[in-house]
Protein backbone atom coordinates (compact mmCIF):
# COMPACT_ATOMS: atom_id res chain seq x y z
CA UNK A 1 0.00 0.00 0.00
CA UNK A 2 1.38 3.39 -0.82
CA UNK A 3 0.12 6.82 -1.60
CA UNK A 4 1.84 9.89 -3.01
CA UNK A 5 0.97 13.42 -4.03
CA UNK A 6 2.68 12.85 -7.37
CA UNK A 7 4.76 16.03 -6.93
CA UNK A 8 8.60 15.60 -7.01
CA UNK A 9 10.05 18.30 -4.87
CA UNK A 10 13.50 19.86 -5.41
CA UNK A 11 16.12 18.39 -3.20
CA UNK A 12 19.25 16.42 -3.05
CA UNK A 13 19.81 13.51 -5.41
CA UNK A 14 18.99 11.00 -2.72
CA UNK A 15 15.91 12.95 -1.64
CA UNK A 16 14.59 13.21 -5.21
CA UNK A 17 15.31 9.52 -5.78
CA UNK A 18 13.38 8.61 -2.63
CA UNK A 19 10.51 10.84 -3.70
CA UNK A 20 10.40 9.14 -7.12
CA UNK A 21 10.41 5.70 -5.54
CA UNK A 22 7.52 6.74 -3.26
CA UNK A 23 5.46 7.88 -6.23
CA UNK A 24 6.19 4.66 -8.13
CA UNK A 25 5.16 2.63 -5.10
CA UNK A 26 1.87 4.57 -5.04
CA UNK A 27 1.35 3.87 -8.75
CA UNK A 28 1.90 0.13 -8.51
CA UNK A 29 -0.44 -0.18 -5.52
CA UNK A 30 -3.13 1.99 -7.19
CA UNK A 31 -2.91 4.44 -4.26
CA UNK A 32 -4.28 1.85 -1.89
CA UNK A 33 -4.58 2.74 1.71
CA UNK A 34 -6.77 2.81 4.76
CA UNK A 35 -7.58 6.42 4.08
CA UNK A 36 -7.98 8.37 0.91
CA UNK A 37 -4.82 9.85 -0.61
CA UNK A 38 -3.79 13.21 0.71
CA UNK A 39 -3.72 14.69 -2.76
CA UNK A 40 -6.47 13.48 -5.12
CA UNK A 41 -6.87 13.69 -8.87
CA UNK A 42 -9.85 13.14 -11.19
CA UNK A 43 -10.10 9.48 -12.25
CA UNK A 44 -7.59 8.43 -9.62
CA UNK A 45 -7.90 4.82 -8.34
CA UNK A 46 -8.04 4.09 -4.64
CA UNK A 47 -8.35 0.59 -3.21
CA UNK A 48 -9.88 1.49 0.15
CA UNK A 49 -8.47 -1.13 2.47
CA UNK A 50 -10.76 0.01 5.24
CA UNK A 51 -14.01 -0.73 3.32
CA UNK A 52 -12.55 -3.29 0.96
CA UNK A 53 -13.86 -1.35 -2.03
CA UNK A 54 -12.11 -0.31 -5.18
CA UNK A 55 -12.92 3.35 -5.76
CA UNK A 56 -12.26 5.80 -8.53
CA UNK A 57 -12.27 9.59 -8.28
CA UNK A 58 -15.04 11.24 -10.21
CA UNK A 59 -14.44 13.68 -13.04
CA UNK A 60 -15.00 16.69 -10.83
CA UNK A 61 -12.51 15.32 -8.35
CA UNK A 62 -14.90 15.96 -5.52
CA UNK A 63 -16.06 12.42 -4.66
CA UNK A 64 -15.23 8.77 -4.88
CA UNK A 65 -17.23 6.28 -6.95
CA UNK A 66 -17.17 2.69 -5.77
CA UNK A 67 -16.32 0.25 -8.57
CA UNK A 68 -16.26 -3.10 -6.89
CA UNK A 69 -15.32 -5.28 -3.99
CA UNK A 70 -11.62 -5.95 -3.70
CA UNK A 71 -11.98 -9.37 -2.13
CA UNK A 72 -14.47 -10.67 -4.71
CA UNK A 73 -13.83 -12.27 -8.06
CA UNK A 74 -14.38 -9.84 -10.91
CA UNK A 75 -14.59 -7.22 -8.14
CA UNK A 76 -18.13 -8.57 -7.46
CA UNK A 77 -19.35 -7.26 -10.81
CA UNK A 78 -21.74 -9.32 -13.11
CA UNK A 79 -19.51 -10.99 -15.65
CA UNK A 80 -20.32 -10.70 -19.36
CA UNK A 81 -20.93 -14.44 -19.41
CA UNK A 82 -23.75 -14.02 -16.83
CA UNK A 83 -24.15 -14.51 -13.13
CA UNK A 84 -26.41 -13.98 -10.16
CA UNK A 85 -27.27 -10.50 -9.06
CA UNK A 86 -28.04 -9.82 -5.44
CA UNK A 87 -29.87 -6.56 -6.09
CA UNK A 88 -32.53 -5.32 -8.42
CA UNK A 89 -31.88 -4.89 -12.11
CA UNK A 90 -33.47 -1.61 -12.99
CA UNK A 91 -33.87 -0.77 -16.62
CA UNK A 92 -35.65 1.86 -18.65
CA UNK A 93 -39.39 1.38 -19.28
CA UNK A 94 -38.83 1.05 -22.97
CA UNK A 95 -41.52 0.69 -25.62
CA UNK A 96 -42.97 -2.10 -27.68
CA UNK A 97 -40.62 -1.14 -30.45
CA UNK A 98 -37.67 -0.86 -28.13
CA UNK A 99 -38.25 -2.86 -24.94
CA UNK A 100 -36.28 -2.06 -21.82
CA UNK A 101 -35.03 -5.61 -21.73
CA UNK A 102 -34.55 -6.96 -25.20
CA UNK A 103 -33.13 -10.00 -26.88
CA UNK A 104 -29.63 -9.73 -28.25
CA UNK A 105 -29.82 -9.19 -31.97
CA UNK A 106 -33.63 -8.67 -31.78
CA UNK A 107 -34.08 -5.41 -29.99
CA UNK A 108 -37.84 -5.09 -30.74
CA UNK A 109 -38.67 -8.25 -28.77
CA UNK A 110 -38.62 -8.16 -25.01
CA UNK A 111 -40.06 -6.68 -21.83
CA UNK A 112 -41.24 -3.13 -21.46
CA UNK A 113 -43.65 -1.12 -19.34
CA UNK A 114 -46.55 0.56 -21.10
CA UNK A 115 -47.36 2.68 -18.04
CA UNK A 116 -46.92 3.04 -14.34
CA UNK A 117 -47.05 -0.32 -12.55
CA UNK A 118 -47.63 -2.20 -15.81
CA UNK A 119 -45.47 -4.78 -17.52
CA UNK A 120 -45.78 -5.89 -21.10
CA UNK A 121 -44.28 -8.30 -23.56
CA UNK A 122 -43.55 -7.30 -27.14
CA UNK A 123 -42.60 -9.37 -30.13
CA UNK A 124 -41.59 -7.90 -33.46
CA UNK A 125 -42.12 -4.45 -32.02
CA UNK A 126 -45.80 -5.10 -31.11
CA UNK A 127 -47.31 -5.48 -27.67
CA UNK A 128 -48.64 -9.06 -27.34
CA UNK A 129 -49.36 -9.52 -23.66
CA UNK A 130 -49.73 -7.19 -20.74
CA UNK A 131 -50.47 -7.05 -17.06
CA UNK A 132 -52.04 -3.78 -15.99
CA UNK A 133 -51.58 -1.98 -12.68
CA UNK A 134 -54.98 -3.41 -11.73
CA UNK A 135 -53.75 -6.94 -12.31
CA UNK A 136 -55.69 -7.54 -15.51
CA UNK A 137 -54.01 -9.80 -18.03
CA UNK A 138 -54.60 -8.98 -21.68
CA UNK A 139 -53.56 -10.81 -24.80
CA UNK A 140 -53.32 -8.32 -27.66
CA UNK A 141 -54.33 -9.53 -31.09
CA UNK A 142 -53.19 -13.13 -30.82
CA UNK A 143 -54.55 -16.40 -29.46
CA UNK A 144 -54.08 -17.93 -26.04
CA UNK A 145 -53.30 -21.64 -26.18
CA UNK A 146 -53.21 -24.00 -23.19
CA UNK A 147 -51.23 -26.96 -24.42
CA UNK A 148 -51.53 -30.52 -23.23
CA UNK A 149 -55.24 -30.38 -22.36
CA UNK A 150 -54.48 -27.72 -19.75
CA UNK A 151 -57.37 -26.24 -17.84
CA UNK A 152 -58.73 -22.74 -17.95
CA UNK A 153 -59.57 -22.40 -14.29
CA UNK A 154 -61.91 -20.03 -12.49
CA UNK A 155 -61.21 -20.04 -8.78
CA UNK A 156 -63.78 -19.29 -6.11
CA UNK A 157 -63.63 -16.27 -3.81
CA UNK A 158 -60.93 -17.65 -1.51
CA UNK A 159 -59.21 -19.47 -4.37
CA UNK A 160 -59.59 -22.77 -2.52
CA UNK A 161 -61.40 -24.45 -5.41
CA UNK A 162 -62.05 -23.69 -9.01
CA UNK A 163 -64.23 -24.46 -11.99
CA UNK A 164 -62.28 -25.35 -15.08
CA UNK A 165 -62.91 -26.03 -18.73
CA UNK A 166 -60.59 -27.98 -20.93
CA UNK A 167 -60.26 -29.53 -24.34
CA UNK A 168 -61.12 -33.18 -25.02
CA UNK A 169 -58.19 -35.57 -24.90
CA UNK A 170 -58.20 -35.83 -28.67
CA UNK A 171 -59.39 -33.25 -31.18
CA UNK A 172 -59.40 -34.44 -34.78
CA UNK A 173 -59.37 -30.94 -36.23
CA UNK A 174 -59.38 -27.44 -34.84
CA UNK A 175 -62.78 -26.35 -33.54
CA UNK A 176 -63.76 -22.83 -32.54
CA UNK A 177 -66.94 -21.86 -30.73
CA UNK A 178 -68.09 -18.29 -31.22
CA UNK A 179 -70.14 -17.04 -28.29
CA UNK A 180 -73.43 -15.14 -28.72
CA UNK A 181 -73.14 -11.36 -28.89
CA UNK A 182 -76.06 -10.84 -26.50
CA UNK A 183 -77.47 -12.64 -23.51
CA UNK A 184 -80.45 -14.96 -23.86
CA UNK A 185 -83.61 -14.89 -21.82
CA UNK A 186 -84.31 -16.81 -18.65
CA UNK A 187 -84.25 -20.56 -19.28
CA UNK A 188 -82.68 -20.40 -22.71
CA UNK A 189 -79.81 -22.70 -23.62
CA UNK A 190 -76.81 -22.47 -25.93
CA UNK A 191 -77.25 -23.98 -29.35
CA UNK A 192 -74.80 -24.37 -32.22
CA UNK A 193 -75.47 -23.76 -35.88
CA UNK A 194 -73.27 -26.75 -36.70
CA UNK A 195 -70.27 -24.64 -37.61
CA UNK A 196 -69.38 -23.44 -34.13
CA UNK A 197 -71.50 -20.30 -33.91
CA UNK A 198 -73.43 -20.41 -30.66
CA UNK A 199 -76.69 -18.67 -29.83
CA UNK A 200 -79.25 -18.78 -27.10
CA UNK A 201 -82.47 -20.64 -27.86
CA UNK A 202 -85.44 -21.55 -25.76
CA UNK A 203 -85.09 -24.89 -24.03
CA UNK A 204 -87.34 -27.31 -25.89
CA UNK A 205 -87.74 -24.85 -28.67
CA UNK A 206 -87.59 -25.63 -32.33
CA UNK A 207 -84.50 -27.37 -33.60
CA UNK A 208 -83.91 -27.62 -37.27
CA UNK A 209 -82.70 -31.10 -38.05
CA UNK A 210 -81.84 -32.71 -41.31
CA UNK A 211 -84.54 -35.00 -42.71
CA UNK A 212 -82.59 -38.18 -42.19
CA UNK A 213 -83.56 -41.54 -43.58
CA UNK A 214 -84.69 -44.87 -42.22
CA UNK A 215 -81.08 -46.00 -42.38
CA UNK A 216 -79.78 -42.86 -40.67
CA UNK A 217 -82.59 -41.23 -38.66
CA UNK A 218 -82.11 -37.57 -37.72
CA UNK A 219 -82.75 -38.41 -34.11
CA UNK A 220 -81.05 -41.66 -33.24
CA UNK A 221 -79.08 -43.32 -30.49
CA UNK A 222 -75.32 -43.40 -30.10
CA UNK A 223 -75.50 -47.11 -29.48
CA UNK A 224 -77.99 -47.75 -32.29
CA UNK A 225 -77.70 -45.20 -35.06
CA UNK A 226 -80.17 -46.85 -37.43
CA UNK A 227 -83.02 -46.62 -34.91
CA UNK A 228 -84.82 -43.34 -34.37
CA UNK A 229 -87.00 -40.69 -35.94
CA UNK A 230 -86.76 -39.16 -39.40
CA UNK A 231 -88.79 -37.14 -41.90
CA UNK A 232 -90.19 -39.42 -44.59
CA UNK A 233 -91.56 -36.55 -46.66
CA UNK A 234 -93.66 -33.41 -46.41
CA UNK A 235 -95.67 -33.52 -43.20
CA UNK A 236 -94.58 -37.10 -42.52
CA UNK A 237 -92.92 -38.03 -39.23
CA UNK A 238 -91.49 -41.54 -39.43
CA UNK A 239 -89.90 -44.06 -37.12
CA UNK A 240 -87.18 -46.54 -37.98
CA UNK A 241 -85.71 -49.57 -36.31
CA UNK A 242 -82.73 -51.48 -37.62
CA UNK A 243 -82.59 -49.13 -40.58
CA UNK A 244 -86.11 -49.87 -41.80
CA UNK A 245 -89.21 -47.68 -41.59
CA UNK A 246 -91.69 -49.22 -39.17
CA UNK A 247 -94.27 -46.49 -38.74
CA UNK A 248 -95.17 -42.91 -39.37
CA UNK A 249 -97.61 -40.11 -38.77
CA UNK A 250 -98.65 -38.26 -41.87
CA UNK A 251 -101.09 -35.42 -42.21
CA UNK A 252 -104.03 -37.53 -41.14
CA UNK A 253 -103.07 -41.11 -40.44
CA UNK A 254 -101.00 -43.25 -38.14
CA UNK A 255 -99.28 -45.91 -40.18
CA UNK A 256 -97.17 -48.79 -39.03
CA UNK A 257 -95.74 -52.06 -40.18
CA UNK A 258 -97.79 -54.65 -38.37
CA UNK A 259 -95.71 -57.51 -39.68
CA UNK A 260 -96.90 -57.64 -43.25
CA UNK A 261 -93.79 -56.00 -44.64
CA UNK A 262 -95.03 -52.52 -45.35
CA UNK A 263 -96.16 -49.44 -43.51
CA UNK A 264 -99.90 -49.00 -43.85
CA UNK A 265 -102.58 -46.96 -42.15
CA UNK A 266 -103.70 -48.29 -38.79
CA UNK A 267 -107.33 -47.71 -37.94
CA UNK A 268 -107.83 -47.18 -34.27
CA UNK A 269 -110.34 -48.42 -31.77
CA UNK A 270 -112.14 -45.21 -30.83
CA UNK A 271 -114.04 -46.58 -27.86
CA UNK A 272 -114.39 -49.83 -25.98
CA UNK A 273 -116.06 -51.19 -22.90
CA UNK A 274 -116.25 -54.46 -20.99
CA UNK A 275 -119.18 -54.71 -18.60
CA UNK A 276 -121.32 -57.10 -16.61
CA UNK A 277 -124.93 -56.88 -17.78
CA UNK A 278 -126.31 -59.03 -14.98
CA UNK A 279 -127.17 -58.24 -11.41
CA UNK A 280 -125.92 -54.76 -10.58
CA UNK A 281 -124.72 -53.72 -13.98
CA UNK A 282 -121.05 -52.72 -13.68
CA UNK A 283 -118.29 -51.64 -16.02
CA UNK A 284 -115.05 -53.59 -15.68
CA UNK A 285 -112.92 -51.33 -17.91
CA UNK A 286 -113.35 -48.98 -20.80
CA UNK A 287 -111.77 -46.43 -23.09
CA UNK A 288 -113.42 -43.24 -24.34
CA UNK A 289 -116.66 -44.35 -22.71
CA UNK A 290 -118.25 -41.99 -20.25
CA UNK A 291 -121.01 -44.41 -19.27
CA UNK A 292 -123.31 -47.15 -20.39
CA UNK A 293 -127.03 -46.81 -20.09
CA UNK A 294 -128.93 -49.86 -18.90
CA UNK A 295 -132.14 -49.47 -20.89
CA UNK A 296 -133.62 -52.79 -19.86
CA UNK A 297 -132.99 -56.48 -20.19
CA UNK A 298 -130.18 -57.01 -22.74
CA UNK A 299 -130.42 -53.42 -23.90
CA UNK A 300 -127.46 -51.07 -23.39
CA UNK A 301 -126.32 -47.74 -24.76
CA UNK A 302 -122.59 -47.01 -24.92
CA UNK A 303 -121.95 -43.29 -24.41
CA UNK A 304 -118.68 -41.86 -25.69
CA UNK A 305 -116.50 -39.52 -23.64
CA UNK A 306 -115.24 -37.77 -26.75
CA UNK A 307 -117.61 -37.68 -29.67
CA UNK A 308 -116.61 -39.53 -32.81
CA UNK A 309 -116.08 -37.62 -36.03
CA UNK A 310 -119.24 -39.16 -37.47
CA UNK A 311 -121.61 -42.05 -36.87
CA UNK A 312 -120.31 -44.21 -39.71
CA UNK A 313 -118.19 -46.34 -37.47
CA UNK A 314 -117.83 -50.10 -37.36
CA UNK A 315 -118.25 -52.11 -34.19
CA UNK A 316 -117.75 -55.52 -32.73
CA UNK A 317 -119.66 -57.03 -29.83
CA UNK A 318 -118.56 -60.08 -27.91
CA UNK A 319 -120.15 -61.90 -25.04
CA UNK A 320 -119.70 -64.92 -22.80
CA UNK A 321 -122.23 -67.68 -23.16
CA UNK A 322 -124.03 -69.25 -20.24
CA UNK A 323 -122.40 -72.41 -18.86
CA UNK A 324 -124.19 -75.67 -19.67
CA UNK A 325 -126.52 -73.80 -21.95
CA UNK A 326 -126.36 -74.08 -25.71
CA UNK A 327 -128.46 -71.00 -26.22
CA UNK A 328 -127.19 -68.74 -28.96
CA UNK A 329 -127.01 -65.03 -28.30
CA UNK A 330 -126.72 -62.47 -31.03
CA UNK A 331 -125.52 -59.01 -30.03
CA UNK A 332 -126.60 -56.33 -32.46
CA UNK A 333 -127.36 -52.66 -32.85
CA UNK A 334 -130.73 -51.72 -31.42
CA UNK A 335 -133.27 -51.73 -34.21
CA UNK A 336 -135.14 -48.72 -32.93
CA UNK A 337 -132.26 -46.28 -32.84
CA UNK A 338 -129.34 -45.25 -35.00
CA UNK A 339 -125.77 -44.78 -33.85
CA UNK A 340 -124.70 -41.18 -33.34
CA UNK A 341 -121.38 -39.49 -32.82
CA UNK A 342 -121.96 -39.59 -29.08
CA UNK A 343 -123.56 -42.97 -28.44
CA UNK A 344 -124.57 -46.34 -29.86
CA UNK A 345 -127.28 -48.63 -28.51
CA UNK A 346 -126.83 -52.39 -28.54
CA UNK A 347 -129.01 -55.35 -27.63
CA UNK A 348 -128.30 -59.00 -26.89
CA UNK A 349 -130.85 -61.34 -28.45
CA UNK A 350 -131.58 -64.78 -27.07
CA UNK A 351 -132.17 -66.76 -30.23
CA UNK A 352 -133.99 -69.53 -28.37
CA UNK A 353 -136.65 -67.31 -26.83
CA UNK A 354 -136.55 -64.48 -29.32
CA UNK A 355 -136.28 -62.04 -26.46
CA UNK A 356 -133.45 -59.97 -25.10
CA UNK A 357 -131.15 -61.36 -22.44
CA UNK A 358 -128.72 -60.10 -19.82
CA UNK A 359 -125.17 -61.44 -20.25
CA UNK A 360 -122.40 -61.26 -17.68
CA UNK A 361 -119.62 -60.47 -20.13
CA UNK A 362 -120.43 -57.95 -22.83
CA UNK A 363 -117.51 -56.44 -24.75
CA UNK A 364 -118.07 -53.72 -27.33
CA UNK A 365 -115.42 -52.06 -29.54
CA UNK A 366 -115.91 -49.13 -31.88
CA UNK A 367 -113.60 -48.62 -34.88
CA UNK A 368 -113.38 -45.71 -37.24
Amino acid sequence: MAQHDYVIANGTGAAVRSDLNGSLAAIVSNNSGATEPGTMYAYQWWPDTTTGLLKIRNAANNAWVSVGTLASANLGLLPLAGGTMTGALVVTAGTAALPGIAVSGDLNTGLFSSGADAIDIATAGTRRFGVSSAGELTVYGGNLTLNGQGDLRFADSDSSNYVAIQSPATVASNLTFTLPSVDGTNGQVLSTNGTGTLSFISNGGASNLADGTAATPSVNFSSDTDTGVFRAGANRLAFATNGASVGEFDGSDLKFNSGYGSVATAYGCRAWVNFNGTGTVAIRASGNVSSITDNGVGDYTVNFTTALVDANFAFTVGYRGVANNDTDYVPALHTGSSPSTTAARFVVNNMSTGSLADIDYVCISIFR
Partner: protein
Amino acid sequence: MATTTTMTNQRIIYQTESGGVAVIVPTGSVELALKDVPVGVPYEIVSAADIPSDRTFRNAWVIGMDGCVEHDLDQCRAIGHDKRRAARTEAFAPFDEIIAKQIPGADAAEAEAARQQIRNKYAEVQVAIDAAADPDEIKAALEATP
Protein backbone atom coordinates in the same frame (compact mmCIF):
# COMPACT_ATOMS: atom_id res chain seq x y z
CA MET B 1 -107.36 -42.07 -25.05
CA ALA B 2 -108.02 -42.54 -21.38
CA THR B 3 -108.78 -45.99 -20.09
CA THR B 4 -111.13 -46.22 -17.17
CA THR B 5 -110.84 -49.09 -14.74
CA THR B 6 -112.66 -47.62 -11.79
CA MET B 7 -116.04 -46.10 -11.54
CA THR B 8 -118.29 -44.34 -9.14
CA ASN B 9 -120.79 -46.13 -6.93
CA GLN B 10 -123.44 -43.72 -8.09
CA ARG B 11 -125.98 -44.15 -10.85
CA ILE B 12 -128.12 -41.76 -12.81
CA ILE B 13 -131.69 -42.86 -13.42
CA TYR B 14 -134.35 -41.33 -15.58
CA GLN B 15 -137.69 -42.39 -16.99
CA THR B 16 -137.70 -43.52 -20.59
CA GLU B 17 -140.28 -42.50 -23.17
CA SER B 18 -141.91 -45.90 -22.77
CA GLY B 19 -142.25 -45.41 -19.02
CA GLY B 20 -139.41 -47.69 -18.03
CA VAL B 21 -136.22 -46.82 -16.24
CA ALA B 22 -132.85 -46.16 -17.82
CA VAL B 23 -129.87 -46.58 -15.51
CA ILE B 24 -126.66 -44.80 -16.47
CA VAL B 25 -123.52 -46.51 -15.18
CA PRO B 26 -120.66 -43.95 -15.26
CA THR B 27 -117.11 -45.04 -16.00
CA GLY B 28 -115.73 -42.15 -13.99
CA SER B 29 -117.36 -39.32 -12.12
CA VAL B 30 -121.09 -39.10 -12.22
CA GLU B 31 -120.82 -35.44 -13.22
CA LEU B 32 -119.09 -36.36 -16.47
CA ALA B 33 -121.84 -38.85 -17.25
CA LEU B 34 -124.62 -36.30 -16.85
CA LYS B 35 -124.10 -35.43 -20.51
CA ASP B 36 -125.44 -38.90 -21.32
CA VAL B 37 -128.88 -38.05 -19.96
CA PRO B 38 -131.18 -37.08 -22.85
CA VAL B 39 -131.57 -33.34 -23.06
CA GLY B 40 -134.45 -32.02 -20.99
CA VAL B 41 -135.21 -35.31 -19.25
CA PRO B 42 -135.44 -35.17 -15.44
CA TYR B 43 -133.01 -37.46 -13.69
CA GLU B 44 -131.99 -38.63 -10.25
CA ILE B 45 -128.55 -39.52 -8.93
CA VAL B 46 -128.80 -42.54 -6.67
CA SER B 47 -126.48 -45.03 -5.06
CA ALA B 48 -125.77 -48.18 -7.02
CA ALA B 49 -126.98 -50.06 -3.98
CA ASP B 50 -130.42 -48.55 -4.50
CA ILE B 51 -130.74 -50.19 -7.91
CA PRO B 52 -132.23 -53.68 -7.67
CA SER B 53 -129.64 -56.34 -8.35
CA ASP B 54 -132.37 -58.86 -9.25
CA ARG B 55 -133.17 -58.20 -12.88
CA THR B 56 -135.92 -60.84 -13.18
CA PHE B 57 -138.43 -58.08 -13.72
CA ARG B 58 -136.00 -55.45 -15.09
CA ASN B 59 -138.45 -54.28 -17.74
CA ALA B 60 -141.07 -53.62 -15.04
CA TRP B 61 -138.90 -51.04 -13.28
CA VAL B 62 -140.41 -47.60 -12.81
CA ILE B 63 -139.34 -44.51 -10.89
CA GLY B 64 -141.45 -44.10 -7.79
CA MET B 65 -142.67 -40.93 -6.20
CA ASP B 66 -139.60 -40.85 -3.99
CA GLY B 67 -137.29 -40.95 -7.01
CA CYS B 68 -136.23 -44.54 -6.41
CA VAL B 69 -136.55 -47.57 -8.65
CA GLU B 70 -139.69 -49.58 -7.96
CA HIS B 71 -141.51 -52.44 -9.65
CA ASP B 72 -144.79 -51.97 -11.55
CA LEU B 73 -146.67 -55.03 -10.30
CA ASP B 74 -148.93 -55.33 -13.37
CA GLN B 75 -145.89 -55.35 -15.60
CA CYS B 76 -144.24 -57.86 -13.28
CA ARG B 77 -147.25 -60.11 -13.71
CA ALA B 78 -147.10 -59.68 -17.49
CA ILE B 79 -143.44 -60.63 -17.45
CA GLY B 80 -144.22 -63.52 -15.12
CA HIS B 81 -146.85 -64.80 -17.50
CA ASP B 82 -144.44 -64.49 -20.44
CA LYS B 83 -141.95 -66.56 -18.54
CA ARG B 84 -144.67 -69.02 -17.54
CA ARG B 85 -145.75 -69.45 -21.14
CA ALA B 86 -142.19 -69.88 -22.31
CA ALA B 87 -141.58 -72.53 -19.68
CA ARG B 88 -144.80 -74.29 -20.53
CA THR B 89 -143.96 -74.28 -24.22
CA GLU B 90 -140.60 -75.78 -23.42
CA ALA B 91 -142.27 -78.43 -21.27
CA PHE B 92 -144.81 -79.21 -23.97
CA ALA B 93 -142.23 -79.56 -26.72
CA PRO B 94 -141.33 -83.28 -26.44
CA PHE B 95 -144.97 -84.34 -26.13
CA ASP B 96 -146.11 -82.03 -28.92
CA GLU B 97 -143.64 -83.75 -31.18
CA ILE B 98 -145.04 -87.21 -30.35
CA ILE B 99 -148.58 -86.16 -31.05
CA ALA B 100 -147.92 -83.99 -34.08
CA LYS B 101 -145.65 -86.49 -35.84
CA GLN B 102 -147.47 -89.65 -34.67
CA ILE B 103 -144.10 -91.27 -33.99
CA PRO B 104 -144.41 -95.10 -34.21
CA GLY B 105 -143.99 -96.84 -30.90
CA ALA B 106 -144.81 -93.74 -28.96
CA ASP B 107 -147.95 -93.65 -26.91
CA ALA B 108 -149.95 -90.61 -28.04
CA ALA B 109 -152.45 -91.09 -25.26
CA GLU B 110 -149.69 -91.08 -22.69
CA ALA B 111 -148.25 -87.94 -24.24
CA GLU B 112 -151.62 -86.24 -24.13
CA ALA B 113 -151.95 -87.15 -20.45
CA ALA B 114 -148.57 -85.57 -19.78
CA ARG B 115 -149.62 -82.46 -21.63
CA GLN B 116 -152.69 -82.21 -19.44
CA GLN B 117 -150.58 -82.43 -16.32
CA ILE B 118 -148.46 -79.61 -17.65
CA ARG B 119 -151.53 -77.52 -18.38
CA ASN B 120 -152.79 -78.08 -14.88
CA LYS B 121 -149.49 -77.21 -13.31
CA TYR B 122 -149.03 -73.97 -15.22
CA ALA B 123 -152.67 -73.08 -14.59
CA GLU B 124 -151.77 -73.13 -10.90
CA VAL B 125 -148.77 -70.95 -11.62
CA GLN B 126 -151.01 -68.57 -13.52
CA VAL B 127 -153.34 -68.28 -10.56
CA ALA B 128 -150.43 -67.76 -8.21
CA ILE B 129 -149.00 -65.03 -10.39
CA ASP B 130 -152.29 -63.22 -10.60
CA ALA B 131 -152.70 -63.49 -6.85
CA ALA B 132 -149.15 -62.37 -6.05
CA ALA B 133 -148.85 -59.27 -3.91
CA ASP B 134 -145.30 -58.39 -4.95
CA PRO B 135 -142.59 -59.40 -7.42
CA ASP B 136 -141.05 -61.82 -4.96
CA GLU B 137 -144.24 -63.85 -4.87
CA ILE B 138 -144.36 -63.89 -8.68
CA LYS B 139 -140.76 -65.06 -8.79
CA ALA B 140 -141.50 -67.70 -6.15
CA ALA B 141 -144.43 -68.96 -8.20
CA LEU B 142 -142.22 -69.26 -11.26
CA GLU B 143 -139.42 -70.96 -9.39
CA ALA B 144 -141.85 -73.44 -7.90
CA THR B 145 -142.34 -74.79 -11.41
CA PRO B 146 -140.31 -78.02 -11.66
